[in-house]
């Protein structure tokens, strides 16, 4: 069966659109934002208590107008490679839709070229790991168009650590130990009762 030429052309065009709206690749983004955060290299912060102050601005060495499509800035907390090792649920994938490097949102703000700052108290459900901070600039279609991060391209400098809460409480500890002991004691009780039945 012959496929009409027009159909082929239309489908080719459509596939191009599909290609662009299908997903953004991290390697296609430019590092046009300069991001800094208060934790120093190797500093250990406590979840639920300590704060991180993030500042970001547009890197003026890029041509003017590069940032015309930037609508919102999304700041995220990202895993460093050492915390991704042997943990495929934190894997870095170039296609940003599937990327799991930066699951923790810090803040989202409308874009402004300079004078941006935000202080964030590390939330209590952040796990213990080594992190850096990354900012994504997204356009009106909610697609990433640029980024900036506190570390270098190899994600090896300026990394900091977060120590998570344990989730344990004294009341839980006491309850679990008491009930465990109770199980063993009642077992001893059972044996005693059986022995007595045997003697009767």
């Amino acid at each position, binding site marked *: 069966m012959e496929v009409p030429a027009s159909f082929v052309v239309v489908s080719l065009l459509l596939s191009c659109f599909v290609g662009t709206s299908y997903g953004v690749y991290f390697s296609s983004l430019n590092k046009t934002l300069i991001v800094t955060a208060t934790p120093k290299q190797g500093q250990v912060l406590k979840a639920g208590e300590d704060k991180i102050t993030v500042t970001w601005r547009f890197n003026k060495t890029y041509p003017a107008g590069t940032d015309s499509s930037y609508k919102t800035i999304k700041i995220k907390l990202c895993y460093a490679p050492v915390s991704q090792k042997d943990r495929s649920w934190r894997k870095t994938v170039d296609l940003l839709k599937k990327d799991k490097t930066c699951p923790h949102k810090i803040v989202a703000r409308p874009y402004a070229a300079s004078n941006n700052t935000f202080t964030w108290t590390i939330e209590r459900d952040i796990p213990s790991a080594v992190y850096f901070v990354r900012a994504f600039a997204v356009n009106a279609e909610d697609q990433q168009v640029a980024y900036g991060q506190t570390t270098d391209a190899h994600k090896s400098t300026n990394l900091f650590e977060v120590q*998570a809460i344990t*989730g344990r409480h004294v009341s839980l500890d006491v309850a679990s*130990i008491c*009930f*465990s002991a109770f*199980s063993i004691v009642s077992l001893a009780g*059972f044996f005693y009762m059986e022995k007595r*039945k045997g003697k009767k």
Partner: protein
Amino acid sequence: MEISQNTNTTDRKFALPVDSEHKSTEFRLFSIASPHMRAFHLSWISFFSCFVSTFAAPPLLPIIRDNLNLTATDIGNAGIAAVSGAVFARVAMGTACDLFGPRLASSSLILLTAPAVFLSLIANSPAAFLMVRFFTGFSLATFVSTQFWMSSMFSPNVVGTANGLSGGWGNLGGGATQLIMPLVYSLIHTNIGSTKFTAWRVAFFIPAFFQMLSAYAIFFLGQDMPDGNYVRLEKSGEKHKDSFSQVFYHAITNYRGWILALTYGYCFGVELTIDNIIAQYFYDRFNVNLHTAGIIAASFGLANLFSRPGGGILSDVVAKRFGMRGRLWTLWIVQMIGGLLCLLLGKIGSLSGSVAVMLVFSVFVQAACGLTFGVVPFISRRSLGVISGMTGGGGNVGAVLTQVIFFRGSRYSTEDGISLMGVMIMCCTLVILLIYFPQWGGLFCGPRKGVTEEDYYLSEWTTAEKEQGFHKMSLKFSENSRRERGKKGESVPLPSDKETPSTFV
């Protein structure tokens, strides 16, 4: 073939019709009459609770792995630990049932492992996580007490059904927990407002309490045998307190126990392995989200509602016409098909195809488990517990082996691992060809002429023991197992004139 009703000795009245050992010859699911049906309900509910506890961690792993800083290796090792503890615990449980009775043996084990579930709440490191999963996994040995108890309460004509239903509905816990634990967790996290890392800990109280309460129920409401508990029967002399070494010896020298231990590793063992890996498989290969992967994983375990009992019922139905040979043939065919479906599962590239094959595969592999325990009660009467324990333990060995060979590290992709596991299932199932009962036959050979059930079961006792009358239970059992000859075997000679039966291995 006549079944003797309880017209003889005791003045005991039972709610269900019974045979000469007072085992029920009928299975009434919706009754809780003591002692038979009550034992059934107590055993499947307590076994269910042990499964819920043992597999309570997997559905909550996305939160636990962040809280305890686990790596993929830690998670894999904990999964293997969870099923390896029960390997020896099941054999030990078999022995304990033979010596102390299923009521005390199972309630003791459940209470001994409940602390492991309670202490999961305070786990704070990968090592602690491994330990609690390891010790909690010991509770899966209650499988043996379940099967032993059913074999003590139900007559050969319904024992496959009883074993299949109690085993299957217990295994259901492995599927139910994938739905229960996330639900409890979200209730605590969202409605009560605890943080994630506290909510999962509190959620573990549910399986822990459930387990503890089922142990109490067994102790206070259950009874070892239709006529009473071991302790009372031994005192009155109705039951002889057997010697551990003899019981153990007769179990390990019976080659049929070893064969079924191997093949059970490739139906039940495979089921446990799939419980551990299937959610991740669907999540990674077909990119479904975690919730969907969890539901698919749950449906594999939930098929146990009817598939394992179906295997047990099928075993009994086939035995009516074809006796033990029918039971063995059906087991061999069903488990072979299970292996073939496993091979196929790894090869299918579409999501809907995979789910469909997985569901059919679950039915066959679980039915094979039910069919296996349609044969186990007949391998030995004296050492029923240890044989059940060996077979059950073999199941867990299969789970450890398949996970270590095919699903650890990155030697094989998960789909290749699944297909290769299917090949291994088919190869290991071939040994069923070697099982031979002199009084009933095997897959390809008929029974030996002139050999009776008494010859087989009484060969487990020495002449001295027989003189003291210790073998009475085996005598009654031999009579009741006559129906395993099937319809054709009705004309085979009965042991009316024999005095000293020959010894058989």
